[in-house]
């Protein structure tokens, strides 16, 4: 009963005009960045961080969450109408969605995606509401060894999400390393500042995030030419037969998406892949898949939205992000002086419940926007990228400068921006680097406290059950994808 009382209080906060406006702005922006090429939700949140600095944290996080799940809706448009997934989470939607569009059923594909996303987003938020508080409550018993192990799990899990565990791990360690620049909070010694006063505060999260996700993303995408012709939309309202065919895929997709989203090592992309495979397996005629099967749109679309809500569970309850975007949001929470993790449900319960309530509202707003306005959003696809990226770069410079009124930060922006471009160019993940920088101080603090507790014995991390289990999970997160990759390579070699 308690979560529902808290939720009602959350609604009281989320329904205030200011928060409602932020929720609407967030989902609208999310929808737009999901449609536009070369800019994703992580980049959009990164670009808004300087503007949100010093603002009301609840309003800002409501908007960021809106961008996150709104982008899932937007990514669908590009998948269905031009067969170019705006987000990796909508790759599976492109397979049957684009085929439906070619058959003149693009509007129906978008309509069912909007309905599926709404149902899944709402169910996912319900799951978040029911699962996160008990998980956070259980985690309140965590001591320094458990927090240390949790950070290890968060970093390794995020490193394992990308195309290469090695590259993910490497960039995660690079982030931790950058986190040591500046004054050591424990004893006041300065580290790696090379006599530069401006480095005493360390490398700011905003600077690195805007550089990697803003400048790096733009440099990697500025070579995009004109997009492919956009398929026109007639009506986005599905028929009763379409709804009947989609209801079970939506339900299955919601459950799969939420469960996978909760796992720190997984995310919406994997969820949509699994959902598509499941729908194909249970279909009476699997040969329809790839030729415009509506179940191939409904299932993955539901699962990627439910996974977005699921990814918020470890972020709010444990302080461990389940995806790249939640890693940026985690950094934003820390930027606002909040401490993500179990204590958030006690110390900042108003914020957490307002965000959860806003997710119900946001999903409803997205449904209203998407059914009648799908055609309008589709027109955004016709805006060439060359009109968009110069203002994005200007915003990056202005945003980073304004954070500390520092030209030196702008130089860091250029340097890390170039690094971000190279990382993007060769498919090196940037999110673990951000997470390393954000979680570095927490990692160091808890390592020291745990070692003090154990009088210098490292066994404390494996002898305490929760810490041991978390470290074992971290090890699994690293080894399982590596083993699978090795197996795949072996099979490919055997088949060649």
């Amino acid at each position, binding site marked *: 009963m308690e979560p529902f009382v808290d939720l009602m209080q959350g609604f009281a906060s989320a329904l205030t005009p200011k928060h409602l406006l932020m929720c609407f702005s967030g989902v609208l922006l999310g929808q737009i960045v999901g449609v536009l090429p070369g800019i994703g939700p992580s980049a959009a949140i990164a670009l808004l961080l300087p503007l949100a600095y010093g603002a009301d944290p609840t309003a800002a996080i409501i908007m960021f969450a809106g961008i996150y799940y709104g982008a899932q809706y937007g990514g669908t448009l590009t998948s269905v109408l031009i067969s170019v997934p705006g987000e990796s989470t909508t790759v599976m939607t492109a397979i049957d969605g684009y085929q439906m569009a070619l058959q003149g059923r693009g509007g129906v594909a978008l309509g069912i995606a909007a309905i599926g996303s709404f149902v899944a987003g709402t169910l996912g938020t319900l799951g978040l509401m029911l699962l996160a508080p008990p998980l956070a409550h259980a985690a309140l018993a965590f001591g320094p060894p458990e927090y240390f192990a949790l950070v290890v799990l968060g970093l390794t899990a995020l490193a394992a999400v990308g195309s290469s565990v090695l590259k993910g791990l490497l960039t995660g360690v690079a982030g931790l*390393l950058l986190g040591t620049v500046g004054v050591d909070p424990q004893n006041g010694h300065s580290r790696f500042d090379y006599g530069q006063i401006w480095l005493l505060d360390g490398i700011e999260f905003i600077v690195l995030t805007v550089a990697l996700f803003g400048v790096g993303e733009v440099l990697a995408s500025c070579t995009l030419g004109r997009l492919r012709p956009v398929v026109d939309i007639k009506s986005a309202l599905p028929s009763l037969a379409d709804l009947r065919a989609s209801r079970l895929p939506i339900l299955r997709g919601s459950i799969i998406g939420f469960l996978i989203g909760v796992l720190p090592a997984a995310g919406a992309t994997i969820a949509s892949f699994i959902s598509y495979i499941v729908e194909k397996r249970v279909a009476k005629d699997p040969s329809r898949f790839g030729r415009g099967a509506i179940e191939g749109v409904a299932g993955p679309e539901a699962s990627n939205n439910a996974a977005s809500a699921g990814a918020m569970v470890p972020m709010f309850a444990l302080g461990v992000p389940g995806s790249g975007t939640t890693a940026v949001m985690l950094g934003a929470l820390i930027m606002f002086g909040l401490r993500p993790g179990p204590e958030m449900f006690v110390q900042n319960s108003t914020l957490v419940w307002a965000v959860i309530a806003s997710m119900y509202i946001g999903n409803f707003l997205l449904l209203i926007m998407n059914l009648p306005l799908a055609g309008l959003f589709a027109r955004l696809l016709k805006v060439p990228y060359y009109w968009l990226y110069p*203002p994005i770069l200007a915003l990056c410079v202005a945003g980073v400068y304004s954070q500390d009124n520092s030209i030196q930060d702008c130089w860091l922006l*250029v340097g890390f921006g170039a690094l971000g471009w190279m990382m993007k160019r*060769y498919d090196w993940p940037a999110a673990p680097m951000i997470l390393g920088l954000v979680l570095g101080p927490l990692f160091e603090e808890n390592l020291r406290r745990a070692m003090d507790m154990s009088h210098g014995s490292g066994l404390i991390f494996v002898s305490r059950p929760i810490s041991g289990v978390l470290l074992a999970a971290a090890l699994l997160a690293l080894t399982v994808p590596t083993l699978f990759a090795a197996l795949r390579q072996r099979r490919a070699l055997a088949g060649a």
Partner: protein
Amino acid sequence: MHSRPAPGEVGLASIFAITGVVWIAGAADLSLWGGFAPDSGFLPLVYGVLLLVLSGAAIATLFWGDSAPGIGPVAKPLLVLAAVMAAVVGLNVAGFSISIFLMLLFLYAVVEKLPPIRSLAAALGTTAALFLIFKTWLGVPLPTGPFGI
């Protein structure tokens, strides 16, 4: 048979490896252990060693495993990056508005070869919007140039 690794990716891994070496060297000047717990230099040393080892492994996999070529051309992103660098240099010299306006105009008119009038209008509009948001609305003391803007 293995493909030849992309020089850019080897360079990227090398940047991380060099950073690792710098951190190992820097940690040598710091205390590693104090009482029961690690001191200021311990984790930087561990991170430096880890980064060096992982970068070495990444370079090794590029030579002995599969290496994909980089995505997209290089010249245009470098030109865009140079424009951003010039704008940052210009912040102290010409002020925020002028350097950002010139960067936008260069990107639109020279890099993208868009019509001059439209480029001018877009550069002017974006600069004005950013000035209004950051200077007027958020009160950020943006660097000013010879004309006070």
